[in-house]
Structure formats: C-alpha cells, structure tokens
C-alpha cells in the first residue's frame, strides 16, 4: 500500500481535555480585617515583588497581617498540606508569579 492510499490514521494528542460549565468562585470585597498570604516561588526577588504588591493591597483592603510562604522549588507545587493550612487561615492568597 503506498502512503497515498492510507485512509485511517490515529490522533496523537491528548483527548481528555473537556472542561464544561466552569464557574469561578464568587468575588466579594472583604470588609472585616483579614490575613493575606503570599506564596514566594523561590525565584530571585520574588519576595520583594510580592511584598510590594502586599503593600499596595493594604492601602485598599482591611488587611490585618501578611504571611509569607516560601517554596523550595519554583518548579514544584506547594505541598497539599501546606496549601490547605494556608487556605484555612487566609482570606486572600496570591499564588501566582512568573519569571
């Protein structure tokens, strides 16, 4: 059979990406004092950048205190138990930072 006669080929990519009816959590502006947590990914100057961002947020929201959590590797997610602990004691979390 020559290559021109091929009639069926198989799809090579991932076929399981089916996100349906994604609904984000409701957004609300906090009015009571709360804890802001920031997650430093370990990259140079991430702490400083996130610290500045926290300062700007303190001007806008009733932030009682800011907690910093540092990861050991930017290439790995926060450990599940640490993430749960942060979520339990924080009203707001900044979780993303790039290079």
């Amino acid at each position, binding site marked *: 059979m020559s290559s021109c006669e091929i009639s069926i080929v198989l799809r*090579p990519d991932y076929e399981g990406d089916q996100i349906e009816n994604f609904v984000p959590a409701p957004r609300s502006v906090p009015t009571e004092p709360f804890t802001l947590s920031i997650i430093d990914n*370990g990259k140079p100057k991430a702490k400083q950048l996130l610290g500045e961002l926290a300062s700007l947020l303190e001007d806008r929201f009733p932030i009682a205190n800011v907690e910093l959590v540092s*990861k050991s*590797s930017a290439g790995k997610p926060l450990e599940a138990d640490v993430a749960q602990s942060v979520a339990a004691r924080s009203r707001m979390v900044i979780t993303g930072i790039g290079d």
Partner: protein
Amino acid sequence: MAEQLNLSGTEAVEYFFDRGWTDGLPVIPPTPDLVEKSLGVVDLAPDAVLGSVPERDRHLTAEKAAINSVMAGCKAEYFPLVVAALEAILDPQFNAHAVMSSTGGAALCLIVSGPLVEEHGFFHLNNALGSGSRANASIGRAVRLVAMNVFGARTGVMDASSIGHPGKYSMVLAETTPPTGWPTFVEELGAPTGSTSVTVLAAEGPRQIANHLNPDSRGWLLTIASAMRCPATFTVGKGAQVAVVLGYEARESLAHDGWSKDEIRSFLAEHSRISAEELESAGVLLELDGAHNMAPEEDGLLPSVSSPDDILLVTAGGPGAGWSAYMPAWAPIQHSRVTSRLVTKAGHSEIIGGKDV
C-alpha cells in the same frame, strides 16, 4: 481509544502540521496496523497507563505512546525502550511538568546502556551525539512528540523555552563498552547481567570538550572540570546532576593510568567547584535569598555538581584527536532528579537506581 481520522498519507502529513502535532519535521502517518504492531511487542493494552503529569491533569496511555512512536519513525521493536524512557520521564522525581515548561529549555536526554545498544544499531562511537542513526534519532524524537502532543509541551502552550537547543528534537546517548576493568553504566545501577537501562536527564545542550595534546590523563580531567565550572551555566555554583561523556582517547588514557570511575567522579566534583569571585568576575550575581543558596562553603567555593555520585559517567564516542563532551542538567537538583528504568521484553519497565542515578 484514539480518534480515527480519515486521511490519505499525504493529507495526514499536512494535517498533522496544521494541527501542531509535529516537531517541525514530517511524521510517519500513525495507521492502526503500525500502532498495533508496536503495542503487540510490549503486550500492553491500548489503555494501559504509563504515567501522568498531575499538575497538568493528564496521563499517558500505551496507545498514545505507540502512536507518537510510529510518528517519530521508530521500529516496533524499539517500543519497549520507548516505554521505559517515558516511564522514567513520568517518575515524579524527574518533575516532568517543570522540565517541559521551563524557560531553560531542557531536552529529554536519554542515556542507554546494555545489549540493546548493539541490537538496535545505536550510534555509540562516531557521532554518538550526532546524526545518522535511526535508533538514536527516532527514540529521542518519540519522547519529545509525546511531551508535545500528550502533555502540551508546545510553543505558545506549555513550553516556555526562551532559546531551547537542538537536543529538543532528539537527544539520545548510547554507551559504548567501557575499557577493561570499568563497570558499564547499567552495571553501576545494580542491574542483572544482560539488562538494558534507560536513564533520563533534563539536559542543556552538549558542550564538546577538546584536549588534543596533553599526554597526562589528569590533564584530561582538568580540561573537563574546567568546562563543568563555566560561570555561564545556570547550575554552576548551585549544584546539579550532570552527564560527562568520556571520549575514546580520554577513557583509554584514564583506564590505562589506573583511574576508576569513582575516582574520576570525585576528581571532577572537586575540581569543578568555583569561587564566588570567579562567578562575580563573569558578571554572575549570587542568589542568597531564594531557593538557591549560593553562600560559599568552608573552603570558599561553591559546587557545580551536587555530589560525585551525581556525575553520570558515560563512555561514548569514536577515535579522533581527543574529544569528550559534557551536558549539565537544566536546573539544580532540588528541581529535577535523574531517573532510570530497565527495559523489559513485555509490560511495564522496571524501576532501577533509585538513589542518585
């Protein structure tokens, strides 16, 4: 089961380009009969899971691995080795998510050791890291196509490589028989006689190392160590796993002079250490307040490799004027570790060498 597409051979090649399912080169259209042939060699069900990348909520089935293996140009008999390589890549210690997405642009470098090197016709002497061998080219290409197609490691999607390097098409290093008295790579992993291993390193591009005139074998090692402590390499001063390829003249000279592989690793680890002043004189600022602690140690120096055991010492390359090579890991050891698997005739591969290599 994978979706079936009704396309002629010519149409398929262009359709796969249009869908972004290639590495930039034409692929072999993955017909059901070719895919079944590969799956038959390993006796795995199409929906058998070889591993996953949890951060991407994606898993790899044997069928998708076989489809991409066919596309890469692999013979069916290569498929057990492809399975072993992919299962090593999907070991959590390797951290495939970060390796495949980082701006550092790592290759999925495979190191193959054992009888399958000769059986499949890998280049392990001349052009050991060059072109011309179907096994070297297509097996490395297969794992890259899986990364792209199954795990989304594509430009503009989930591969943020700033520069990348040609090893991202394929990067396979096959070990040639070491000089008498030295263990093979697979023997160092602790495998039974007759085994073939696949080890995966998230690698920067290879550096060729020249030493053409020095009759002293210690001189060979000093030259290699100097390449390993180049300040421009991201991991220098931080500590990582690296592969060192001992070319023909280097390995023969070193073995003749009585060096063992352990002694070579210790020498290279010690002599690739670098001072803060050398790094700073090259314009490199030390990271002191992040994940990489670059505070000099008691001797005032910083490591380029994490430990002697983190040097993957591989014999490869043909005779010439005196060439060796070196490939550093793309990132320090806390971000990714080398993983190894033994190739099996059927079914899943076997875990081997779980400590440092």
